[in-house]
């Protein structure tokens, strides 16, 4: 994968989902569904994914 010289900004990427209106609703829910599954450990996170310390399961 090639990387841009410019940091696209994590927050800025998420805004683009929020902007997307109806078309982006599916993406939005899918993204958070993945996060939720990660949270309750239905599925082990892929090794490439770094976990946010906040989302560690109790």
């Amino acid at each position: 994968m090639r990387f841009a010289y410019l940091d696209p900004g994590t927050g800025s990427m998420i805004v683009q989902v929020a902007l997307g209106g109806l078309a982006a609703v599916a993406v939005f829910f899918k993204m958070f569904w993945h996060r939720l599954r990660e949270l309750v450990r239905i599925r082990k996170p892929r090794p490439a994914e770094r976990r946010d310390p906040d989302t560690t399961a109790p």
Partner: protein
Amino acid sequence: MRIPDTDPGTPTPDPGSFRDWDSRVYALNGRVLRALGPDGLDGWRALAGSELFAAAVAEGKLVATEEVDERLPEEAGAAAVLEHERIPFVSYPYEWSFSMLRDAALLQLELVRRALDEDLTLKDASPYNVQWRGTSPVFIDVGSFERLREGEPWQGYRQFCLLFLNPLLLQAYTGAPFQPWLRGSVDGIHPDGLRGVLSGRHRLRPGVLTHVVLHARLERRHGDGERDVKAELARAGFRKELVAANVRRLEKLVRRLRWDPGRTTWSDYGATTSYSEGDAARKEGFVREVAARRRRGLVWNVGANEGRHARIAAEHADTVVALDADAAVVDRLYRELADEGATRILPLVGDVTDPSPGLGWRGRERLPLEERGRPELTLCLALLHHVSIAGNVPVTAFLDWLADLRTEIVLELPTRDDPRVAALLARKRPGAHPDYDREPFERALAERFEVERSLELAGATRILYAARPR
């Protein structure tokens, strides 16, 4: 995209083109070259083969570019070299009026939208990549184009907000000028900074809640960048259609933004000038006579106001930079010229007593005004009293500045008896500005310039001089 006055004979890296390793600009004997790295070459090949490239160049929206067989220094790491058409005079967004930045933003968005149709995108979104042929914006950074990577949001969105959208929102919604902020920050206006300025009632205006408030909050929350959001988005099915929809929304938002300057000091100056019709015509004739002596490359009109004399100069010059400190006047001139389809006058916002300095990395990324092209002729009409009395710049210092430019000049001296000068002097202590008088002025002028012609107007309360540097 700027070229030093003296040609070094060897390729010189452009001091403003270093951020993108894959695409860097060099100057060589007045030519503009671009070194492409391997990824840059891939992006160029994709662009060169697209319908967008041919169409946008033909429409004048994209700088004419071709691949050339030219060797650049080893450190350029060039997989290929491009040559660009030269832009007559490089300017920066903090020198543009509201409508100019808005039109540049619409060009940027149009190119992204059209690129997406051919599975291309632009990796950044900077107004420094837009320059002007007269009043037509031209996108100059061919190196911005790359192949679209499916599943990714637009990489340039954040920069678009910082350098295009936020400055426009600031001025459209609060009336505060964006130019000082952009001049103070090469990166632009951050969402967090703008959020602090936009109060409760502004937050209901289109675009503010999402692009500013939400954007600022998410930036703060995700500032640590721990998550790989890009991969998460791709997995969740983010796709090109969403990028295209966002770009269309941005276009709609930007197109609706308006700035109402109200009545500024100079925005109705032309209509209320103290000149009689006959004197105004004689002044124009004087300017026309000097301008028509020979064809010139670059003319500056400092204090251009409504652009009457810039238009005369443009009849006999390739490019006229029409500079005025009043952004409302410049905005109106820009819109008039754009409607007329004028191609040789570039209106810019600038105060000659506080001109654009060198900015960015080592103060060389954005160059001072004087280093971007030396004028062959400079018009300073109804200007000296503002510079010298209102601005407190000594008359000799102003003439030194003009002499250093090695430019021919047409300069107007409104004497102390002129009503406008008298009004300015009335606010100062009695006897202030003794250097501002016909006799010391003419002496100082003759020391630095060879005066070729002069003309008294309005009962000798205004005198025009045409002079060449000694």
